[in-house]
């Protein structure tokens, strides 16, 4: 067996396929004690990872059920959040609305800018500077969310008030931007912070996609006399479309799970408000961070239940994003 494993892996087909050395079939070791232990440890770690994710789902469900059973309101459609009251009444309608609305807005704001950044670094910037510029954009991802929250609270929200008022007075006829009192701690402000936070992930994945564009396509279109923009439009964008869509969806998933920055920027006002420029709103994650301190036993259960919903939503969004990206090739 021990001699066979080395020979087998060298067979022409495997080498041609670029496969790494592997023992024959499913057998992972040569039978020696060290091999068995090491292979077992590696496999065991993989199974631990598997177990953790399974446990996350299981424990969240388990701990959420008692609170859900005590709930007097409809969990899915109620806009109230009073799990500490007797009887407890709570529902996720408002949280779901705030989460989806703020993340979608963030994605809409961030995607064009992020793709612009990716195009700039890949095709417009001097080649020698490209990796350095990429690093600068990645720095945005290195800033912790609590710092974005502090910055959003103390700096950005002041400036957002004027922008919100301007948008409200000029574009107020759009239902979403309407309302009487545009404020600075609105869902809109939160989405701007979220947009900044998801910029680097969207742009770095888009850049990887652009790197995969066959050089032949680029050169062919240039040789036909295309301008730089025509080259991008004809050979880069069609090739990278699924990758860019997937990237922005991954950004969406990231934005949905973001907690602290949103919790610091938003002021909680009960009820669904479609006017995103007005103060108020809440998201799953921000609500958990804000109401955990005062939560009773049922309150914690209710927060865990809402966290479970967030987990499922982000899971679906991320899986869909990965499926879209993988349609072209493996980028992520």
């Amino acid at each position, binding site marked *: 067996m021990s001699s066979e494993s*080395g020979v087998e892996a060298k067979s022409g087909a495997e080498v041609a396929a*670029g496969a*790494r*050395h592997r023992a024959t079939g499913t057998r992972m*070791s040569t039978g*020696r004690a*060290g091999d068995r232990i*090491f292979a077992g440890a*590696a*496999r*065991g*770690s*993989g*199974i631990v*990872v598997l177990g*953790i*994710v399974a*446990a*996350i789902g299981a*424990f*969240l469900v388990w*701990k959420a059920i008692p609170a859900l059973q005590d709930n007097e309101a409809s969990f899915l459609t109620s806009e109230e959040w009073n799990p500490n009251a007797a009887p407890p009444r709570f529902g996720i309608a408002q949280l779901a609305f705030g989460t989806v609305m703020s993340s979608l807005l963030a994605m809409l704001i961030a995607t064009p800018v992020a*793709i*612009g950044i990716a195009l700039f*670094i890949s095709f*417009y*910037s001097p080649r020698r500077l490209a990796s350095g510029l990429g*690093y*600068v954009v990645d*720095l945005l991802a*290195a*800033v*912790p*969310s*609590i*710092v*974005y929250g*502090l*910055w959003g*609270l*103390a*700096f950005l929200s002041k400036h957002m008030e004027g922008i919100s008022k301007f948008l409200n007075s000029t574009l107020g006829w759009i239902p979403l931007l309407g309302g009487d009192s545009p404020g600075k701690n609105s869902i809109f402000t939160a989405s701007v912070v979220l947009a900044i936070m998801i910029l680097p992930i969207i742009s770095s994945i888009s850049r990887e996609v652009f790197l995969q564009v066959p050089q032949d396509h680029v050169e062919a279109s240039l040789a036909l*006399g295309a*301008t*730089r*923009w*025509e080259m991008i439009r004809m050979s880069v964008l069609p090739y990278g479309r699924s990758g860019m869509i997937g990237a922005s969806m991954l950004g969406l998933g990231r934005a949905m*799970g*973001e*907690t*602290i920055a949103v919790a610091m920027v938003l002021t909680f006002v009960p009820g669904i408000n479609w006017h995103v420029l007005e103060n108020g709103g809440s998201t799953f*994650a921000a609500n*958990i*961070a804000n109401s955990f301190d005062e939560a009773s036993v049922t309150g*914690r259960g209710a927060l*865990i239940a809402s966290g479970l919903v*967030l987990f499922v939503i*982000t*899971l679906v969004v*991320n899986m869909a994003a990965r499926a879209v990206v993988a349609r072209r090739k493996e980028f992520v």
Partner: protein
Amino acid sequence: MTTVSTSKGRPGAALTKVSTGRRIKDRFVQVLVYLAFALALIPLMSVLWTVVVNGAKRFDLTFFQFSMNAVGGRDAGGGAYHAIIGTLQQVLITSLISVPIAVLTAIYLVEYAGDGRLGKVISFTVDVMTGIPSIVAGLFVLALWLLTFGFDFSGFAGALALTILMIPTVVRASEEMLKLVPNELREASFALGVPRWRTILFVVLPTALTGMITGIMLAVARVMGETAPLLLTIFYTKVINTNPVDGAQGSLPTFIWDQAKDPNQNSIDRAWTGALVLILIIMLLNLAARFVAGRRRPAGR
């Protein structure tokens, strides 16, 4: 770019000219793309600038020597000693737990799994883990460690939550690096009769080591700034607690969170300085990671 050399006066001369409409469109997009990049620099500069300017006010020795014990929101003074200690301990514990699991998982995926079903399932699970919101990781540890096992808030519980966030990043980074190790090294080692586990430990791992260290440092830097899971698992305290397995502990992110909620200017100043210290540590880790990565690329010698 579009210069095609043709002699003057012939019909082919039109090739050198790009029509005005196309040229304007090209310029327009170029301006837009440049603007997009400039737009991304504005928040970055603004964040760094406000943090440095506001954080410098309390960036003094007191800040690093004292905790917030018996310091009210309105009082001047006080510091983040307890928070820095807590953060360092939690991140150390997180790394000690997650790095072995993550590296071994990466080794399994690259060296052992092949096209087997378990490998695919684990790889999918790592993808799922990458997308887990940090607050959900906190809720899980809350549900498991605190509510089910009945332990109290502690730095260790926080480290458990951070572990869930760190594992997938390290697995992916290590996987990338292990895949870069040339097959010839493995083949040469096998040909000499070296057992598989020794080949992996003493041939494959050292080759990929620098890259993996870079990945681990970047993961540490990312995990260090996480706040949400810590609020649910280590809670918050103003006093120094050097025992990570007993009771609530301080940490830099929760320190900032707590001080920023206080309306007094002295507290807000402390929050900014906390943010400055946190960013400094993270940037240092990032720079160090780049330095390590730049020194030697994993490649066959």
